[in-house]
């Protein structure tokens, strides 16, 4: 079994799998169960200044597929609704009982220097390994000038990061909100403020569904609904892009990244790390399946590492970053075509109708003498869009095969059809 230990922002962790700041890390009872299940660390549910917040009843909405599998949930919960002293006492106990596991204290406060500094110091004194700044909550807290209300203003991100960095001598993670136009502005601000790492993403602002009987957005609170934070596997692509942007941009690439957003399987985790995360955090997958999902994360990643010959997670961390390019750097002369393996084809006709109606009319449907149907790619018409390859229900039935070509690597800026072409040297 491969060694999964990792280091992020100077903190050693048994494995890269932490629970994100959320209900799974709300109190000692959960955290103990999580550590027993195998999670390497937790980011404690966000702490605020007393008196604690009060939550509403009816808190989560759901985005299901037609089989009632959850693709994502959204929530309108606030930060920890328990007194600060109780949380800090429980953190102390967990630190003592589980000295090898990581605990990060998450916090949020109004935009006042004293408030941030006092709270950060109190949390640091409880023995946490680091502090995470919650600048992301897109509901409730932002109406009180906190959460995403801070995270959406780069100057404020820099400011609160600096306040906390000045106040404590443990690593600081600035948690970024995806509800912005350009993640690099937030990341740069965090870096300037002195952050040791950024955590991203927090939840995506959303309305998840409408109850069509009452005409109220869900989750419904006595006849009204509000926008909430969307998370779970549906947000993974959004998060991956933001992680990759930070990891590949020269100005921000030195930041450590705690990757978050929809991580559900070991493959998701490996992808986050390959695109720049030094470790990852998980919330929704644990909320859907329980802490035991960490089994698959640990086992799947180490099995894969063994198969690939990796002996430490650093060896593949950021391995995909160099291959993330701008569109203008892609080779216009690359050509790939769909190939259908008739032995695997079950004749569902899906590839044909998809290409016929919405792509390039490149899959012919021929009825054979015995009544069976045969699906054949018309190479001259196929542009290599991958649609059929993705919708075919049979794995490996349609493959995309690159066409051998003698043509040189040619980008759009160099392309003869580009009216703004830069003359070749």
């Amino acid at each position, binding site marked *: 079994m491969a060694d999964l230990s990792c280091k992020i922002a100077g903190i050693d962790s048994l494995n890269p799998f932490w629970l994100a700041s959320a209900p799974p890390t709300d109190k000692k009872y959960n955290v103990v169960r999580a550590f027993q299940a195998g999670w390497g660390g937790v980011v404690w549910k966000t702490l605020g200044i007393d008196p604690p917040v009060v939550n509403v009843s009816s808190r989560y909405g759901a985005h299901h597929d*037609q*089989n*009632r599998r959850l693709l994502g949930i959204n929530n309108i919960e606030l930060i920890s609704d328990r007194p600060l002293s109780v949380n800090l006492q429980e953190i102390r106990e967990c630190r003592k009982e589980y000295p090898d596991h990581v605990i990060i204290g998450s916090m949020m406060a109004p935009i006042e220097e004293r408030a941030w500094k006092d709270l950060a110091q109190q949390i640091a004194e409880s023995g946490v390994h680091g502090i995470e700044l919650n600048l992301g909550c897109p509901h409730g807290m932002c109406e009180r000038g906190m959460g995403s209300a801070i995270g959406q203003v780069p100057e404020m991100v820099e400011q609160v990061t600096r306040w906390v960095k000045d106040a404590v001598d443990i690593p600081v993670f600035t948690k970024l909100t995806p509800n912005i136009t350009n993640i690099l502005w937030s990341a740069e601000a965090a870096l300037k403020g002195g952050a040791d790492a950024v955590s991203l993403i927090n939840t995506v602002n959303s309305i998840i569904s409408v109850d069509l009987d009452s005409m109220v957005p869900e989750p419904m609170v006595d006849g009204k609904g509000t926008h909430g934070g969307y998370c779970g596997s549906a947000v993974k692509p959004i998060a991956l892009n933001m992680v990759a942007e930070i990891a590949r941009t020269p100005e921000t690439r030195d930041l450590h990244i705690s990757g978050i957003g929809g991580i559900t399987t070991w493959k998701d985790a490996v992808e986050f790390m390959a695109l720049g995360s030094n470790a990852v955090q998980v919330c929704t997958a644990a909320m859907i399946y329980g802490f035991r999902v960490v089994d698959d994360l640990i086992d799947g990643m180490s099995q894969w590492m063994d198969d690939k010959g990796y002996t430490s997670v650093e060896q593949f961390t950021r391995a995909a970053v160099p291959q993330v390019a701008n569109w203008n750097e892609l080779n216009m002369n690359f050509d790939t075509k769909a190939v259908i393996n008739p032995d695997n084809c*079950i*004749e*569902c*006709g899906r590839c044909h109708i998809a290409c016929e109606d919405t792509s390039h009319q490149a899959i012919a449907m021929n009825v054979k003498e015995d009544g069976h149907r045969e699906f054949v790619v018309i190479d001259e018409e196929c542009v290599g869009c991958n649609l059929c390859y993705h919708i075919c229900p049979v794995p490996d039935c349609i493959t995309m095969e690159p066409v051998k070509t003698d043509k040189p690597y040619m980008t759009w800026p160099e392309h003869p059809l580009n009216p703004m072409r830069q003359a070749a040297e």
Partner: protein
Amino acid sequence: MTILQGKQVSKSGAIQGSGHIGHNDTDDGFSDLHPAYSTLQAMAESNRCLYCYDAPCVTACPTSIDIPGFIRKISTGNPDGAAKTILSANIMGGTCARACPTEVLCEQACVRNVSEDVAVEIGSLQRFAVDHLMARDELPHPFKRAPLTGKQIAVVGAGPAGLSCAHRAAMLGHDVTVFEAKAKPGGLNEYGLAAYKMTNDFAQREVEFLLGIGGIRIEYGKALGRDISLEALRDGYDAVFVGVGLGATNELGLPGEAFDGVDDAIAFIEQLRQTEPKSDMPVGNNVIVIGGGNTAVDAAIQAKRLGADEVTLVYRRGAEHMLATEYEQELAKINGVVVRHWAKPVAIKANGKLIGMEFEKTELRDGKLVGTGEKFEIRADQILKAIGQKIKADDLAGMEIAGGKIVVDENYQTTASGIFAGGDCIKSGEDLTVQSVEDGKQAAIAIDAFLKTA
């Protein structure tokens, strides 16, 4: 758990276990063969459908129901819309969902068979949707009639063919009078389909539902050839549809056939379907069923479920020659029916009362079925004959009959102009409910075209 062509027989409590159903369990034995899906089952199964394009299952359905279309509606939480999709192609979608041999129709063609060997359970999904809609009494009938044409159509026979024709003709704006010889509508839906397929008076509820379109009147106790004549119908109506099914059955041609205890299987099933509770239905202790079709299998299983000790089904050829599908044959065995192939009845044995039957073993010699001379006896106090139905030609004077079926052209018109026919009494596809519904529907469309040109 026995898997029969993708159907888990254990889904029916009634056929789990040894197959012997004691007398106390008789009424349970006639509960649903394939119980209705729960919403959860419908959700899971509908999601197995791949939403094929130009789907093979649709081609395999005699009524061409848009199967991927209706299954998708189930999966998006629109079961009533799914039901309308079904019923627009097949107004007896409810009966077909229960009685169709899907294992040789739509489900056989399902692409899910190719790699997984387990078809989408189209029949059960169809039933889920149609039942859902039919349970909502508050809803109006789902189809509207076209502007009335003032044309009058006579339909003979209130079976699947006749009622399907009547419904489509009413939809197209014509007024329909149905003449039915019996006291109840439904044809073999009411009198012939196995009791464990058509539970809870479904046949009557379906007819009531179908009549909701309006413009259809049924006259009971009116038989063509006895109470009414073809000429009178032709004079009184703009067009006539004949859907009388197959009213007669074949005889063994053995001495003693009129003996007490030697019964026609269809008459036996008819009596059973009309008996409530089922435990009131008399049955022999040792029952022999002669035949190799679905009627034989249905009769054998129902005799067993009524509490007969021993039921032996005897067929003169091999299993592969039986008209009963593989699934039905398997179902018979699971129900404890003993199936004997390659033997033909040669004598009915009685001494004051029926005591058994003598058989001669058979074999194929140069492609011809011949007796081997070797004989054996099976004791019996009841013999059920299921050796085929035939048309009752006497009632049908005026139309040409060939090969035991009314002759029709590609527009379902008989040799008598303005008189159309469909269902079991013509040669279209197999003699199945679903084919009869298709015949009735297509004939109504043809009649509509005929009336426009006439």
